[in-house]
């Protein structure tokens, strides 16, 4: 997989996990009562991950195309999270963990390519 494609995949996964975290932390159909004590951590994770993703986007494609693409990625990821929160809310914690892990895994070859 080429570096730009890998960077886009990393953005998709990380943004998906960030918004899944926000959704789990919030007071909405996708939130879980047993995650109440984790809400602060989930929100913190979400903001840090979104910031990191913005850095990846800019590093991969420059300020213009990178941020334009990131906006599209965010819309796409939120759409998926809302779909899950509405129709398959039990999958949301799993999606959060898997997307976060897979997103972190893609950072390894990505960092290697950039350094």
């Amino acid at each position: 997989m080429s570096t730009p494609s890998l960077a886009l995949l990393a953005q998709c996964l990380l943004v998906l996990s960030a918004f899944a975290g926000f959704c789990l932390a919030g007071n909405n159909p996708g939130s879980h009562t047993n995650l109440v004590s984790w809400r602060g951590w989930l929100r913190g994770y979400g903001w840090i991950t979104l910031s990191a993703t913005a850095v990846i986007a800019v590093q991969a494609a420059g300020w213009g195309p990178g941020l334009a693409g990131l906006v599209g990625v965010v819309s796409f990821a939120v759409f998926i999270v809302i779909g899950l929160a509405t129709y398959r809310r039990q999958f949301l914690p799993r999606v959060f963990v898997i997307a976060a892990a897979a997103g972190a895994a893609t950072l390894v070859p990505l960092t290697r390519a950039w350094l």
Partner: protein
Amino acid sequence: MAKETDRNVAPAVKAGLRQTMSWVHTWAGLTLGWLLYFMFVTGTAGYFDTEIDRWMQPELPPAQINRASTQSAAILLGKLQSEAPGAEQWLLTLPADRNQPFAGIYWRGADLQAGAGAASGNKLVDLNSGATLQARETGGGQQLYQMHWLLHYTSRSYSDWLISIATLFMLVGLVTGVIIHKKIFKDFFTFRPNKGQRSWLDAHNVLSVITLPFQLMITYSGLIFMGFSFMPLIVAAQYGGEGRGQFYNEVFSPPGMIDAAGSPARLAPLAPVIHLAEQYWGEGRIRSIDIRYPGFSNGRIVLSETIDGTVATGAGRLVFDGVTGELLHNAPSGSSPAKRVRDVFLGLHEGLFAAPAIRWLYFFSGLLGTGMVATGLIMWAVKRRQRAERTSGRRPHGLVLVEKLNVGTIAGLPTAVAAYFWANRLLPADMPARADWEVHALFLTWLLMLVHAALRPTRRAWTEQLAAAAFAFAAIPLINALSTPRHLLHSFVSGDWVFAGFELTALGIASLFGAAAWFSRISLPAARRVNAADHPAASAAGAMGDLS
């Protein structure tokens, strides 16, 4: 006295900011909502204009990008010298990226007595053989995209104003929408299905909020696009009422151009010029070579850079003397800060820079924007129908009109777009004014859908038109397979992802409309369906398919 004053205060002022903004949002959205929907549908399709062009001309070979610029230019120049001698302008377009998959030539002011076939013209050229690429006459994806802002049948003087006002209303709708959405963060992830009017509101909110940056960008940049049309006094203030041409020349034309041709002289060889340009921009990054007064002493050669490496639409240009080949001007893309800002917004709007994945995200955002407009229009009707049925039991004429227009436009327009693609394959290849008739097919089908919506009970009309849209898109690959050798299987086997992508997208859209038709049919129990067919006003409640 105080009471008297209170009574004289307009209700909107008394109602508070949110309610006032809600009123503005509702009516700004409804007034030109169907036009906005048309703009969103055609604009979203426009993100794949080049791919649609290629599907609509199946006679063309695979894209011929990544060729050596020097060789491509030599082939094109040779063709222009033989087919358009004595021309005032030769334009060579090189197949540099996705936006220009084939080489092309354009000329004007050619000398018919010197052997030119036509005074002006343009052709696509096969770089393998040097021959002209022959394909069916079609408006293609460009026509579909241009409808987005030209509206096709209206003159620019009308369409520019209509589009500008619609875009302005859209911007007003977005800003007021943010103001009236009290729980924009709390309800960020909230969609409650099967709750009638509440579900439509949730859907409208979700589609608006998750694409808000895209919608703000596309609307604001759309206004910038139309700025010179609906704010002509900005130019007139500096250049006078008749100075528009001078303004465009100064801002957009390459520098150092001379109006008179001068005396005959030999055209400078292109190879060194191309070599120098590639030193500036990189190999394979020349988009076009514009030769003014070729073979004359005042000739100029203008090379333009490709625009796929940056968001901005403006291209860097190098201007050479047409006889000596000397570099006269290096004009960067952003000649001033104002133009740089404009180029960035226009580039963001058109998305020409976008690689395939980002292009799909643009398309996805466009679809969600289309859904946002559609849900807003539907919600207006659902809300008022329920209110009317609670009070008088009769639907006002205005509500009936909106409901009919909703069916005929929201479900009917996509069928009309599919008819445009059908016409491309079904109209005879040698039919006169073929490209025009493709567009006529689109608008005639849309008219047919509006008539159907007017004649049928509303709920039935929704189901039938959604099913018609599903059928119309699902049949596109079949019609292509029956009318050309480039069927879907062939596309897979040969790795032709432009064709395969187009037809798979058509099938994907068909399945979405099929699902919508199915849900609109099953959303009411059978007994109520019968009732709805006979008395459409009676079928108010229901699930998300609360459409009748």
